[in-house]
């Protein structure tokens, strides 16, 4: 009988079609710009710390400080990487967007192409403190060359080669300076019979994979797009660069085939932190994960990701990191600019650098993400002098997904006992190139 009356009541309501009356409107807080004088910014932050809640804990006092200084309230939502891209897409599509958003800096040129973001032209740039305060390579990731950037750097990251000091000492090894030395060291530390490997690779993560395709090709002096933004994936430098990285598992066998299943960087970092492997190549935000898994910063060293002895150049990383963008349709442009200025001022950078393990994006700032001075100096040197931005073209996002996924598939083939030749790499890259060409 209870069921019947419940259903009957619901039926009556339904007939009235007053659907709006069924509650739920209590949570309309995440909407876009609020109107008029009510100064509340909506800010979407990416996941930088150990969990979404951890990010919130770290950011909340910082945002409170901003509110105290300016009277502008900030509505924070931390979004995991799984969801961030989709959320930004739907925000762009619908115009129902936050005021300020974090983006992976590699997406900058792609997102710029949507025309949904505020360009930091002369005036806007001055409002946030002028372009001269930023590290030039970091600011270069903000958008296509020769245009006003639509994003500015917030957290800097760079790849470094982490090595376990004790394991290296036990094997009588020195930190490698060239690719060849790295492979030799890794081989010495590998013993498949004991399930022991020199390195761990995030070989199932297409974003990690594409970064290494990029860096290795850069070391060969090769670019993935020509001056007109057309994809050029099949050159010798690209093919050999990709193959060199694949060979860590295929020819040199210094990585566990299981790594083909590592679909994010966390898993390889875990292997390193729990001392299953002696080396990883990872961005410096690995530090917080390493520490969380109980490894002290004195137990490992970092050197630049080494290039082959005969390399065309010594690129050791792409300019990695997180940028900050303002949605063009914001109703709080001035407040948003103030917020960007605040987030990129030296004080805030110093506060956030440690918990998020990020490098400063400001010229004169010192890295605070580690208590290990040597490591800090190494990463800052990589970031400031040995990094190259990923292709700053609108099709960058497709480059990441097509080339990255092609590498996933090739690693899978190697892991399951197959071999991948240079010709097959070339064919796979050709397919990726066609896909990018077809949809741009």
């Amino acid at each position, binding site marked *: 009988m209870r069921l019947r009356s419940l259903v009957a009541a619901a039926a009556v309501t339904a007939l009235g079609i007053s659907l709006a009356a069924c509650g739920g409107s209590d949570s309309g807080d995440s909407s876009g710009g609020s109107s008029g004088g009510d100064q509340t910014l909506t800010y979407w932050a990416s996941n930088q710390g150990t969990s979404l809640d951890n990010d919130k804990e770290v950011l909340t006092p910082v945002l409170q400080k901003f509110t105290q200084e300016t009277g502008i309230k900030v509505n924070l939502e931390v979004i995991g990487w799984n969801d961030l891209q989709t959320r930004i897409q739907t925000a762009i*599509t619908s115009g129902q967007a936050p005021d300020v958003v974090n983006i992976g800096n590699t997406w900058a040129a792609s997102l710029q192409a949507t025309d949904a973001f505020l360009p930091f032209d002369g005036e806007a740039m001055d409002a946030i403190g002028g372009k001269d305060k930023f590290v030039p390579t970091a600011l270069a990731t903000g958008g296509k060359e020769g245009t006003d950037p639509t994003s500015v750097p917030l957290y800097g990251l760079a790849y470094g080669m982490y090595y376990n000091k004790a394991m290296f000492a036990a094997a009588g090894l020195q930190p490698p300076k060239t690719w060849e030395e790295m492979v030799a060291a890794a081989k010495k530390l590998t013993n498949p019979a004991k399930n022991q490997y020199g390195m761990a690779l995030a070989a199932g993560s297409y974003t990690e994979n594409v970064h290494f395709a990029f860096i290795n090709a850069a070391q060969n002096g090769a670019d993935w797009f020509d001056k007109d933004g057309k994809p050029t994936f099949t050159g010798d430098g690209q093919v050999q660069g990709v193959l060199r990285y694949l060979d860590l598992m295929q020819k040199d066998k210094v990585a566990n085939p299981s790594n083909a299943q590592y679909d994010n960087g966390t898993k390889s970092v875990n292997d390193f932190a729990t001392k299953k492997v002696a080396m990883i190549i990872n961005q410096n935000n690995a530090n917080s994960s390493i520490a969380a898994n109980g490894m002290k910063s004195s137990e490992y060293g970092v050197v630049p990701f080494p290039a082959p002895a005969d390399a065309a150049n010594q690129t050791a990383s792409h300019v990695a990191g997180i940028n900050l963008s303002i949605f063009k349709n914001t109703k709080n442009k001035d407040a948003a600019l103030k917020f960007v200025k605040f987030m990129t001022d030296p004080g805030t950078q110093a506060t956030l650098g440690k918990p998020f393990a990020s490098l400063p994006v400001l010229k004169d700032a010192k890295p605070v993400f580690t208590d290990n001075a040597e490591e800090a100096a190494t990463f800052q040197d990589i970031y400031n002098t040995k990094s190259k931005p990923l292709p700053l073209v609108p099709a960058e996002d497709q480059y990441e997904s097509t080339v990255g996924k092609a590498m996933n598939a090739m690693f899978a083939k190697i892991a399951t006992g197959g071999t991948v030749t240079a010709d097959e790499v070339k064919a796979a890259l050709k397919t990726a190139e066609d896909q990018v060409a077809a949809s741009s």
Partner: protein
Amino acid sequence: MSVATTDAPADAAKPARSRRAGPERRPGLSRWLPYLLLAPAVLLELLIHIIPMLVGIWMSFVKLTKFYIANWSAAPWAGLGNYKVAVDFDNAVGEGLLKSFGVTIAFSLITVALSWTLGMAAAVALQPPFRGRSWVRTLFLVPYALPAYAGILTWNFMLQRDTGIVNHILVDNLGLASDRPFWLLGGNALVSLITVAVWKLWTFAFLTLMAGLQSIPRDVYEAAAVDGAGNLRQWRNITLPSLRPVNLVLVLVLFLWTFSDFNTPYVLFGTAQPPAGDLITFHIYNASFLTWNFGSGAAMSVLLLIFLMIVTGIYLFVTGRRSRRA
């Protein structure tokens, strides 16, 4: 519960009811009452299904790439351009779609066949009462009751190469292989996908067939037994024909569900989906959201919809004709 004997689902929609009862006796009201009763359903269907669908079809005819998604009205008309790219199998995009389509066909056919077989096998095994029958039945229904993502996540954990139970049993306990196989990449990914899908689906087949079996009177079997028919013959001559109307609907429903299954590949593989696990809805999702080409994604979806409609139409036509002949 009484069970009528018409066949296909569409038949539920056919009018042809001769015995009309009371409600129509008040002509004034009864003319408007049905529409009033349908109004909420119609409005919601329009809002959530029909209108978005039409917008989706429109999207398939425009060049809706990242250059235009912030400002739809500026997107140039693409005509059949998106469709041409999708079905140009010499081109990387069309080739990818074709492969994904092939994988999906294989996946659906095998999954439906296995689910139906297991469901039937279990329903028959549980047909005669025995002690503990209701417990077994309850247990068998758990995979269906479990939220899809919870079950799939568990399978993902089980199928890990180094830490999963599957390899532990196969390699460590049974020693069937010396090298640990991968289950979530390479060709095995399809096997895993099918296993997980069958695990969720067979119990629905079981549940439906079991209910169908209950409506077959016992004395039919008894009569056949008197005639000397063995169990296998009874199954072929009595069970199978009696379940025909159930089977017709069941197989169609299973097929439509598996063919447009999104959850299984999405939760099982995440961003690292291998080519052998590239089911079509997931493929389209990636084509839309990963490459930001929503026009092209919409065109692929429309093609998928047309395909499903044709298959369903043929299925209903063929089965409808056959049952009339029978």
